[in-house]
């Protein structure tokens, strides 16, 4: 068991490194708001050398993207790594990452989607707490996202109980799915781990495969067919990754209705909710669907490696609290 390393929390005046380990930001305008919001937070920033490179959909070649990330990580001045965006390509860098150097220079890394492909490996190889939350181009997507991002990275105390986003201004129901749909009731406590389901599959069979035993596993997906989610869940079940978890949080998962994946759609389709109920309800662990993390405009920041507690009783009677500090003083 590798000891847990907590990165130092951020303070105004700190410098953060913006790199693009996955997809290209494409245009400078994509990051313009990010720079503005970093100024508001009092953060200085350095840009990776290849951040605006393009190689297909990737921000440069694997060699260039990995060099940027390794160099930024080794930079003592840089207190946190903010990937510009997700996309695709982070997993391709894993054989080129210097995990020893990363372990010896603990710092914050935060992102979601494709960045899951860095968060899980870095956490598991070095013991460092990594943060599943917004990337540099999305931490200001909503008040909910911004507040959780700021609390998680700037305040050294535990995040505590997780609130839901405010109801729509007319006071009626939030968008489907409700943020706290209980698929299986129960109570669980364990370290948090997880991320985007496609990336969790992406790491299967490799030295970076997700460890779930006794943990609270959070998963979400975007722009994917429910039948493809079904396939990936079946793989995790075959590998006994879900059965060994203490509890499962399945996120909001944007654009996962049949036909939203830009693929040929089978003529028969199930909904995501029915796939989740079908595959997860039989597990003897609590399962909650709908939490706002990942690809929606409202994103929690969930630290991988810290203890959390889940109490799921009935719909809306769900309490998720993160009881351990994720950063150090």
């Amino acid at each position: 068991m590798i000891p847990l390393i907590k990165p130092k929390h951020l303070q105004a005046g700190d410098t953060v490194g913006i790199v693009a380990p996955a997809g290209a930001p494409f245009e400078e305008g994509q990051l313009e708001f990010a720079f503005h919001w970093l100024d508001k937070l009092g953060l200085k920033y350095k840009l990776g050398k290849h951040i605006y490179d393009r190689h297909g959909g990737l921000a440069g070649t694997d060699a260039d993207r990995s060099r940027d990330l390794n160099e930024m990580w080794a930079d003592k001045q840089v207190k946190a790594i903010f990937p510009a965006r997700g996309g695709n390509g982070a997993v391709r860098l894993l054989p080129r990452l210097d995990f020893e150097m990363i372990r010896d220079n603990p710092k914050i890394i935060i992102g979601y989607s494709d960045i899951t492909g860095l968060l899980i490996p870095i956490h598991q190889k070095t013991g460092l707490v990594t943060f599943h939350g917004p990337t540099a181009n999305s931490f200001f997507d909503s008040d909910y996202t911004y507040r959780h991002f700021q609390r998680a990275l700037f305040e050294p105390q535990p995040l505590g109980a997780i609130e839901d986003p405010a109801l729509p201004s007319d006071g009626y129901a939030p968008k489907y799915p409700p943020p706290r749909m209980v698929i299986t009731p129960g109570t669980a406590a364990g370290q948090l781990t997880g991320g985007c389901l496609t990336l969790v599959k992406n790491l299967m069979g490799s030295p970076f495969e997700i460890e779930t035993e006794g943990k609270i596993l959070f998963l979400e997906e975007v722009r994917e067919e429910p039948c493809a989610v079904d396939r990936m869940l079946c793989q995790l079940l075959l590998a006994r990754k879900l059965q060994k978890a203490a509890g499962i949080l399945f996120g909001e998962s944007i654009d996962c209705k049949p036909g939203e994946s830009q693929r040929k759609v089978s003529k028969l389709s199930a909904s995501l909710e029915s796939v989740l109920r079908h595959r997860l309800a039989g597990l003897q662990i609590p399962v909650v669907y709908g939490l706002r993390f990942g690809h929606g405009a409202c994103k929690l920041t969930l630290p991988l490696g810290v203890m959390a507690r889940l109490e799921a009783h009935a719909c809306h009677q769900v309490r998720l609290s993160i009881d351990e500090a994720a950063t150090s003083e």
Partner: protein
Amino acid sequence: MNKTLIKPRALQSKDRVGLVAPGARPYKPSDLNRAVRLVEAMDFVPVVGQHCMACLGHLAGSDEQRLHDFNGFVGDVSIAAIFCLTGGSGALALIDKIDFKTMAAAGKIFVGGDDNNAISIAANAKENLVTFCGPNLDEINSRTDMELFRDFLINKDENKNERTRSISVSTKNGEFDFCADYIPVPGVAEGSLLGGNLTALTSLLGTGFAPDLTDALLFIDDRDERTDILDRWFTMLVISNQLVNTTGIILGPFENCDSRGSFNLLSLEEDLSQRLIALNKPCRFDFPIGKTAMVPTGPKARFDATNGSLEFLESIFA
């Protein structure tokens, strides 16, 4: 790979063939009837699984129902082969409950495409049974396809000289006598054939049914998929350190796979070729495997990437 290969018996006219839907359900009753007529046209006797038209979401019934059909045919000595009606996710849910031991002991033929390739790969990984990556019945759309399918499973060569069997780029139904395939690494490779649909293959990684690609002549294909997703699944083979152990890589036509409007400007050929060239194993794109030419999993074969041919070095059937 020292274990002895278990080879199925070649089919003969009037053999009974079980039809299953391990994943998705045939969309309409006429789809099922079409498959039945197709198997009759091959001169086999089709036996339709009891739950093929059951419906649960996109699946042909519950896991238990689909499994009941599958294992029913596995255990039925009068059934010589199992063909799949259609692909679709769901096959994976059955993998740990399929009776591969009985399937291998009986030397039963299994042909599966798309998601059903997970079953063919797992059967080979677990029991060293020769299985077949070929079209599901709903993908056989011409008399030529039907005859290719049938002829592959019927051992017509009395001398059992498998060297006379081969697949080449000329198997493609083309109007031209030239081929313009892309060959990132020319050369010749020999190994045990292993692979199938890339999504299905990578769905087994990290599970107890994952194939060992050591000394394998790997063949991969997929269809109707986004290239950024195919890039991910190919990356799985790279980071699991499996690709370095293969002898060569045969890439299929990847029918109807493109960027689908995502920010992915490189074609799959270009995207994969950088890593294929670095790997330096003979490989070639657009080789007619899967739908147009059935490929067995297990037997030794010789792949000539330069000239576009695949030759079997041992018999496929018992």
